[in-house]
């Protein structure tokens, strides 16, 4: 255990170093396998070359290093990795520069999958998914925009026509079949709009 501690105290973010001691109970040996299950690649093949951090636009701005995150995943530090996953802009620069063909951006996406299932759900995800479930679109136009559209002579938006009910029904059925609504804890409002 002493060995693990030594590796980590050198590269840990301040927040983490407050709680320096990482015991075996904090490590999840199945974490790498879980990441693969949610569509990531095998983190154990990471060479720790640091190319991904070097090209990451986010790492310039905040204490977030792609390589470090992958290292945490290798050790199975589940709790520490799941918190900051929504800062990746999925620009895929890391993927283009990864010599191990690991696709770190997809790894972040796999971590988001796991985080959602642990109940770490950012509010905007709920808002967008609820919009889709209730209105059949994630972004909805306001009154002013609809007026502007009329002024431009653009076709009437399909989602404001009666035929859209059928589309909404299809979307609700798909989301309920994949149990996405239960995953996020959202529900279609009956008789809304």
């Amino acid at each position: 255990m002493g060995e693990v501690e030594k590796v980590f105290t050198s590269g840990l973010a301040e927040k983490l170093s407050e709680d320096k001691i990482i015991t075996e109970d904090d490590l999840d040996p199945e974490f790498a396998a879980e990441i693969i299950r949610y569509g990531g690649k095998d983190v154990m093949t990471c060479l720790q070359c640091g190319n991904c951090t070097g090209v990451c636009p986010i790492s310039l701005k905040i204490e977030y290093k792609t390589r470090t995150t992958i290292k945490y995943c290798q050790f199975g530090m589940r709790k520490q990795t799941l918190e900051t996953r929504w800062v990746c802009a999925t620009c895929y620069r890391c993927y283009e520069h990864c010599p191990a063909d690991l696709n770190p951006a997809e790894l972040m996406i796999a971590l988001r999958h796991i985080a959602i299932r642990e109940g770490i759900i950012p509010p905007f995800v709920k808002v967008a998914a609820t919009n889709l479930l209730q209105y059949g679109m994630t972004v909805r136009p306001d009154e002013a925009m609809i007026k502007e559209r009329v002024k431009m002579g653009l076709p009437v938006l399909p989602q404001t026509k009666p035929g859209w009910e059928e589309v909404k029904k299809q979307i609700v059925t798909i989301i309920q079949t994949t149990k996405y609504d239960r995953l996020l804890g959202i529900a279609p409002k009956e008789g809304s709009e």
Partner: protein
Amino acid sequence: MTYAYFFGCVIPSRYPGVEYAVRWVMGPSGLKLDVQDVPEFSCCPVPGIFYSTDRDTWLALAARNLCLAQRGRLEVVTVCNGCYSSLLKATEYLSEPKKMGQVNKVLGKVGMKYTGIPEKSGDSGRRIFRPVSVRHFVDVIHTDNVMLELANNVKRSLSKVRVAVHYGCHYLRPTEYTAIDDPNDPVKVDDIVKVLGAESIDYEDKLSCCGAGGGVRSHVVELANSLCEDKFKNISSEGADVIVTPCPFCLLQFDNAQKTFTKRGIPVIHIAQLMAIAMGADISKLGLELHNVSCNPLLAKIGEGAK
């Protein structure tokens, strides 16, 4: 092949001017391409939200859109990098028989089935299917014939305009799927800008991210703004008149983020709007006054200033 417009969510409800420009450019008054509407198209769905949280749901919803294109034997034209990467990735996922089977089980509940577009069967009597083709607006325009037509249709001179092109990440990457342009030295949008007669300037870190994607703008808006500021500094130091992008989400990001760090913003427009301006469309209908950063300096430069 007939194209189908896929505008997605952001364009129709936030930047209707882009929709007008695309319809005008591709339609009878512009390049006379064969395009039609599919009113049942819904959200692509957003990769930063649905692809990030549940791949199965994402794939089923994307496959629903692809089924609609398959029914009409249409080629999907997306005007947004997000829709493009989401739908294109979905066609790749669906080329795996196992995934296709899983998705069709879900789609069966709504009476749909994704197979790809059936081709004429060969001599052996086997039916052959071709995946639904998903194209980016820029890719559709950037063909020899269309570019020639475009060059012949330029009516307004943009010769004094210095354009900073921002490609946006999902137009270029990951090259695993979206290899329509060189990821390290993309040319297509620059080419279109040049054909329109404007000058496309080079600036530092041209291919870097605007900061909006992957849910960053929705989640940590300060971080998104700060990335955009870096990009803005590089662009403004080269003296650009306008930022042109093929993605409405990058457009939204530049348009909204600029007010947080500068008073003298650079106008941002979609490539379709620039094309419509050059090809002589009615500027008052391009929705430029709906942008947060005033486009008047740009219009003054091309001699179409506010009356």
